[in-house]
């Protein structure tokens, strides 16, 4: 069935379909304060809760996932080639909640690597939208991922809101797990101030024998309902254990190496620094950093016809500023044909421009790009160098 639309820019969605995007404005450079405020707000959010804390025992995790699978698909860390990746899981037992860090981020849930948008008839021009399938539950996001999602939202809501992304986002229920220590050697969330969960529908805090569960939002009700029979009430000792865990966590993430308030200015000041060349010489333009990064949002559009040339499908797929062809325009002219300019561009998106504009970090310190980069390029090294460090980048 094709829908015929009047000429003009197609809107994938009628306006106002998602209520979640309340209009928030961020003050420049003040996200640290804002985060504190938000945390206070989150703590006291919703109807006053009288409840006792809930505990998900380790042995019940699989049943908890099974209970979710009854309500919808679950996107979670699974094991792949001795590493972890986010994928839609088939069996509850595939879940690896203990995964330290996934090599790929969870952005694919709401921003698939290839997303067929519309199909159109080549002779009549009629077209229909292809429904944006998306996982229902995102289980096992880490604090950095929740911050990344915030950054992603800011970008996708800016200007003309990206309805497709936002509809998926609205549909998804985020179940995040607090990290109690740095997940691997490449991550630096402690430096980026992203080691506490920013926003989640359900938050789990690891305990010795399971997880302390907090339901935060309206959307969490469905999970609460599904887990009614599975969760246990926290004992007084467990409540105490939770407090201990939380305070131990602050110590584990102390010793930030980046001054976030000054970062945008420092990045700006180092724009013409000679050390960018060192990276430019090494970078392979492979774009792996972009693909694994939870805050990289770039995409390209492609049209693909069927073999009898009667129908065509328009998709968007990931793209990235690290590729030579990304900045190629008519001419042919390339406004970032230099490798060094490309890596500098990416780093400035993470450390200067977007964080300044939106007031949230656009590098959340997850370290995925560091793990992925075959030549050891790391935003942390860059930020430190921009702030007066002398170590090689």
């Amino acid at each position, binding site marked *: 069935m094709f829908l015929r639309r009047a000429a003009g820019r197609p809107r994938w969605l009628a306006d106002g379909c998602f209520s979640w995007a309340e209009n928030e404005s961020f003050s420049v450079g003040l996200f640290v304060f804002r985060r504190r405020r938000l945390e206070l707000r989150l703590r006291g959010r919703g109807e006053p809760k009288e409840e006792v804390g809930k505990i998900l025992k380790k042995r019940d995790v699989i049943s908890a996932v099974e209970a979710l699978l009854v309500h919808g698909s679950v996107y979670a860390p699974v094991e792949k080639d001795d590493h972890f*990746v986010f994928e839609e899981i088939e069996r509850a037992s595939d879940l690896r909640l203990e995964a330290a860090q996934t090599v*790929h981020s969870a952005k694919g849930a709401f921003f698939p690597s290839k997303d067929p948008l519309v199909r159109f008839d080549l002779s009549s021009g009629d077209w229909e939208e292809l429904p944006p399938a998306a996982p229902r539950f995102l289980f096992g996001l880490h604090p950095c991922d929740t911050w990344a999602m915030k950054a992603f939202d800011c970008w996708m809501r800016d200007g003309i809101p990206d309805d497709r992304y936002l509809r998926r986002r609205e549909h998804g229920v985020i179940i995040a797990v607090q990290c109690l220590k740095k997940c691997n050697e490449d991550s630096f969330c402690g430096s980026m101030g992203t080691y506490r969960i920013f926003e989640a529908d359900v938050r789990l805090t690891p305990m010795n024998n399971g997880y302390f569960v907090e339901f935060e939002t309206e959307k969490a009700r469905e999970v609460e309902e599904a887990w009614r029979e599975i969760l246990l009430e926290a004992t007084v000792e467990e409540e105490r254990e939770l407090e201990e865990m939380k305070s131990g966590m602050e110590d584990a993430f102390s010793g930030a190496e980046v001054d976030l308030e000054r970062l945008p200015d420092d990045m700006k000041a180092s724009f013409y620094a000679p050390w960018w060349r060192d990276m430019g010489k*090494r970078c*392979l333009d*492979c774009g792996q950093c972009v693909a694994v990064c939870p805050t990289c949002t770039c995409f390209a559009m492609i049209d693909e*016809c069927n073999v*009898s*040339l009667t129908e065509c499908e328009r998709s968007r797929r990931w793209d990235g500023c690290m590729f030579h062809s990304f900045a190629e325009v008519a001419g042919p002219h390339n406004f970032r044909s230099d490798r060094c300019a490309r890596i500098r561009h990416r780093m400035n998106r993470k450390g200067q421009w977007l964080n300044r504009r939106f007031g949230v970090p656009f590098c959340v310190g997850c370290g995925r790009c560091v793990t992925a980069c075959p030549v*050891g390029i790391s935003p942390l090294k860059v930020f430190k160098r921009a702030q007066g460090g002398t170590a090689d980048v």
Partner: protein
Amino acid sequence: MNIAKKPRVGFFSFASCEGCQLAFLECEEELPVLLEAVEIVRFREASSYEGREIGGEEFDVVFLEGTIAREKDAEEVRLLRKNAKIVVAFGACATTCGVNAIRNTRPLEIVRREVYGEKAGWYDVFPARPVSAVVPVDYTLRGCPVDRTELVKFLLFLLRDLPAPIPKYPVCFECKAAGVVCNYVRGRTCLGPVTTCGCGAICTRFGGRCEGCRGILPDANLEGLRYAYREVGRSEEDLKHDLQLFNSFLSTMREKVL
């Protein structure tokens, strides 16, 4: 479709395993439609006709598979270029010179004797070269063998009289989109970062390493790749060795042949 007369298409094969022609024949689902849209004039691999003479026939498109390995081939290619509107270099042998270029790394005399023994003198071969080293090529379809999906897509562009898109990304791009855990992360090397994409990262998706069959990207950073090899404990020799399989022509022979 804006083509009044069916375009005349020919397939020709030079030094190769002819696997790329097979790849075309394997497009079983699309073939009936494609064959309605074009007239295949010459395609020895797909016919019972055994001759391979190349005459004055006119073509709209010719697909040239294989490496040019002797003067006689080069003459035929020149003739085909003259008689065809569009020349497509088809597969690794034709585009990067593929595995055939390995022979260029050793003295031709020795190679000839090794292969043909005492009859070495009967075969008049010269250093192997890709089609583009003999005549100008309009389009390049990469891979050993060519990728079927890419081939069909390419034909659809051609049939609509549109310039076919040229893949300009590294294999990593497709590999990452497919969610593969990178070889480098697993402590292995891979030529994906410098190799032209379009194969859908078929090798890495199935647990292998990219061997670079689609050719090194024009602006590839081989210096950086050396660094990446060192990072996982491999040497410059390892890199040379890996590049030799499909990219010998690029790395060692271009000057000698052109």
